[in-house]
C-alpha cells in the first residue's frame, strides 16, 4: 500500500461510493468514519517504516508515479494528514445535522482527497491545478440543484480560476530566477505573477467580496467548509513556496507586501464584520479576518513563522465547523439570519446560540479559547517588527469582538417570560458540545498541538531554521 493511494485514492473512491450507494441516513457516519480512520492511520502508522505485526510486515510506501510525475508523502507528513482528516471527520459527522449529509460527505471526501493530493504532487507547483479542480467540486456543495445561483458563487469560481494561470506561470518564471538570480526584471515579473495568483486564492482585499455574498446565498455549513478547506491548503501551498525559494522570504519588499495585505484583511474584515446585521456575513468577515492573520504570520521575518501559522491553522477547522453548524441550525428557524430574525433565539436554541458565540469569540482571540494562543504568539512576533501592524490587527480583532457581543445581544433579546427550550436534536447537541469542548481544550491546553508543530522542521526544512 502506498501513502498517496491511502490518503488520496481511497477517500476519492469512498466519496464516490457514498454518493452512489448510501442514503442520507448513513452518509455522514460513513464519511466521518472514513476520515477518522484515515486520520488515525496517519497518526499511528509511520510512512515508509516497516511495522511488524506478528509475522506480518506492514509498510506504507511513500510515493507513486502518475504520468511521469510523482505524488509523495514523507514520514513528516503523518501529523499533517492526521490533522487534515481529523478536522474533515468533524465536518462530515457534523453534516448529519444539516440535512445534506449524502452530498456533503461524498463530495467533501473527494474535495479533501484532491486538496491532499495538492500537498503530495511533485513538482509542487502543479498543486495549483488540483486546487482548481477541488474549487470546482465545491460549487456543487454551495449551490443545491433547486436553488438559483447568486453572484457570489460566480465570482468565487471566476477568482479561483484566474488564480491558477498566474501561479503556474510564476512557477515557470521562478525556475528562471533560480537559474539567474541576478536578473531583477524576471524577479519582479515572477513576484508580481505569484502575488496575483495568491491574491485570488487567499481572497485578499478587495477580492474577498464574494465571501459575504456567498454566506448570504448558500448553505452556511457548505460555505464554512469552503472557508476552512481552501485557505488552509493555500497556506500550506504558500509555505511550500517560501520554503523552496529562499529569495522570496529574504526579499524585504515581498515580506512587507504579504504582511501589509494580511493586516489590511484582518483590519477590514474585523471592522466590516462589526458593522454587519446578518449572522452569515459576520461569519464571512470573521473568516476573512482570520485568513488575514495567516497572511500576517507568513509575512513575519521570524524563524517561528511556520509555528505561528500552524498554531492558528489547527483551531480554524474546529472554530468554523462549530460556527457553521450552529448557524445551519439557527437558519432553519430564522431565515435569512438578520438580527431582526434571530432576536431571542438563545432561549429556543441555547446550545446552538452558545456554541456560535464561543466559536466567534475564539476567532476573535478571546482568552482561554482555541484561537487565543495563536493570536498571542502572533502579537508577540508582530510587535517586534511593526507596532503599527500590531495595532491594526488588534483593531480587526476588536471589531470581531464587537460583532460577537452584538450577536449575543440580538440572540438574548427576548421577553422576560419567554420559556427556555432545547430544540436541537441529540446529534446536533452532541456535535456542538464536542466542538465547544474542543475550543476550550485547545485554549486551556495548547500543547495538544505540539505533535503537529514538532514535525514542521522536517516539512519545511529551510523555513524553520
Amino acid at each position: 500500500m502506498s501513502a498517496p493511494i491511502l490518503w488520496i485514492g481511497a477517500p476519492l473512491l469512498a466519496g464516490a461510493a457514498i454518493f452512489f450507494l448510501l442514503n442520507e441516513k448513513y452518509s455522514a457516519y460513513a464519511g466521518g468514519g472514513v476520515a477518522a480512520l484515515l486520520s488515525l492511520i496517519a497518526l499511528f502508522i509511520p510512512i515508509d517504516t516497516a511495522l511488524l505485526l506478528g509475522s506480518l510486515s506492514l509498510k506504507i510506501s511513500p510515493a507513486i508515479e502518475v504520468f511521469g510525475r510523482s505524488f509523495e508523502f514523507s514520514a513528516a507528513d503523518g501529523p499533517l494528514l492526521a490533522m487534515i482528516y481529523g478536522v474533515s471527520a468533524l465536518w462530515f459527522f457534523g453534516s448529519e445535522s444539516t440535512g445534506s449529509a449524502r452530498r456533503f460527505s461524498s463530495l467533501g471526501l473527494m474535495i479533501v482527497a484532491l486538496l491532499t493530493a495538492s500537498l503530495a504532487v511533485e513538482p509542487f507547483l502543479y498543486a495549483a491545478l488540483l486546487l482548481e479542480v477541488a474549487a470546482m467540486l465545491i460549487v456543487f456543495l454551495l449551490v443545491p440543484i433547486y436553488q438559483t445561483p447568486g453572484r457570489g458563487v460566480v465570482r468565487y469560481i471566476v477568482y479561483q480560476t484566474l488564480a491558477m494561470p498566474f501561479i503556474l506561470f510564476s512557477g515557470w518564471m521562478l525556475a528562471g530566477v533560480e537559474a539567474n538570480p541576478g536578473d531583477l526584471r524576471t524577479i519582479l515579473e515572477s513576484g508580481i505573477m505569484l502575488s496575483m495568483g495568491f491574491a485570488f486564492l487567499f481572497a485578499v482585499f478587495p477580492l474577498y467580496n464574494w465571501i459575504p455574498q456567498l454566506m448570504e446565498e448558500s448553505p452556511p455549513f457548505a460555505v464554512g467548509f469552503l472557508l476552512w478547506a481552501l485557505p488552509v491548503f493555500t497556506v500550506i501551498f504558500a509555505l511550500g513556496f517560501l520554503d523552496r525559494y529562499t529569495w522570496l522570504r529574504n526579499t524585504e519588499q515581498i515580506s512587507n507586501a504579504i504582511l501589509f495585505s494580511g493586516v489590511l484583511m484582518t483590519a477590514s474584515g474585523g471592522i466590516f464584520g462589526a458593522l454587519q446585521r446578518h449572522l452569515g456575513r459576520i461569519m464571512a468577515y470573521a473568516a476573512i479576518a482570520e485568513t488575514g492573520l495567516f497572511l500576517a504570520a507568513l509575512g513575519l521575518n521570524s524563524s517561528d513563522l511556520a509555528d505561528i501559522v500552524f498554531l492558528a491553522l489547527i483551531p480554524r477547522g474546529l472554530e468554523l465547523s462549530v460556527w457553521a453548524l450552529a448557524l445551519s441550525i439557527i437558519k432553519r428557524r430564522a431565515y435569512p439570519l438578520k438580527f431582526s430574525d434571530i432576536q431571542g433565539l438563545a432561549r429556543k436554541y441555547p446550545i446552538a446560540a452558545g456554541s456560535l458565540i464561543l466559536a466567534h469569540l475564539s476567532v476573535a482571540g478571546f482568552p482561554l479559547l482555541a484561537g487565543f494562543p495563536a493570536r498571542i504568539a502572533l502579537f508577540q512576533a508582530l510587535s517586534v517588527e511593526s507596532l503599527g501592524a500590531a495595532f491594526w490587527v488588534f483593531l480587526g480583532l476588536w471589531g470581531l469582538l464587537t460583532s460577537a457581543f452584538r450577536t449575543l445581544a440580538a440572540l438574548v433579546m427576548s421577553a422576560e417570560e419567554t420559556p427556555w427550550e432545547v430544540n436541537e436534536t441529540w446529534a446536533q447537541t452532541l456535535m456542538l458540545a464536542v466542538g465547544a469542548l474542543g475550543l476550550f481544550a485547545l485554549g486551556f491546553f495548547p500543547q495538544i498541538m505540539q505533535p503537529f508543530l514538532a514535525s514542521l522542521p522536517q516539512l519545511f526544512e529551510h523555513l524553520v531554521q
Partner: protein
Amino acid sequence: MLLDIPSWTAVLLTLTTSTTILISRDWRALLGALALQYLAAFWLVTRHLPLAMGSVKLIAGWMSVAVLGMTRINLTPVEDRDQDRFYPRGSAFRLLLMGIVILVSAGSAPRIEAAIPGMGLPVIAAGLLLVGAGLAQLGVTNDLLRVTLALLSILAGFEILYAAVESAILVTGLLAAVNLGLGVVGSYLMTAGSVPLIAPEDEE
C-alpha cells in the same frame, strides 16, 4: 515564414471567434465560435506539444462545448432571459473593447517574443488575444453561459502560452480536467434553480 501561414490563420480564427463570443447574443453562435476557437488553439498548441497531447485539449474543449450546448438547448424560455445588467452593453462598446484587446496584444506580443525566444509570435498573439477577450467578456457580463465561455477562453489562451514552456503529460491531463470541469460547473449552474425542490415524502 510559409510554415507560419497556418499559424497566422489560426490567430485570425482566434480573433474572429473571440470577437463573436464577445458580441453575439445567439447562444448557438457563441458555442459554435468556442468550438472553432478550440480548433485554432489545437493548431497553435501543437507547435510545441505532440499531436496526441494537443488532441487531448481539443477533445476536452469540444466536450465542454457539447455539455454546455446540451444544457442550454434544454433550458425553457423563462430561464432563457438575458441576465446582463451592465451599461454600456451595446455591440459598439464591445467592439471597442475588442479593439483595445487587439491593440494591447499587438503591442505586447513582440516584447514577450523578445523576452522568451522560441515561443513564436503567432502563439503569443493568439494566447494574449484569448486571455484579453475572456477578461473583457468577464467585465461586461453576469450571464452564466457567457461567464463560462469567458473562463474557457482565458484558459484556452493560457494553455496556448503554457504549452510552449511546459510539456508534462500530467499538466495536460489536469488542464483537460479543469476545462471539462468548468463546462460541467457552468452547465450545473445554468440548470440550478430550474429543478423544483421535492420533499422525500412527495417522491414516494
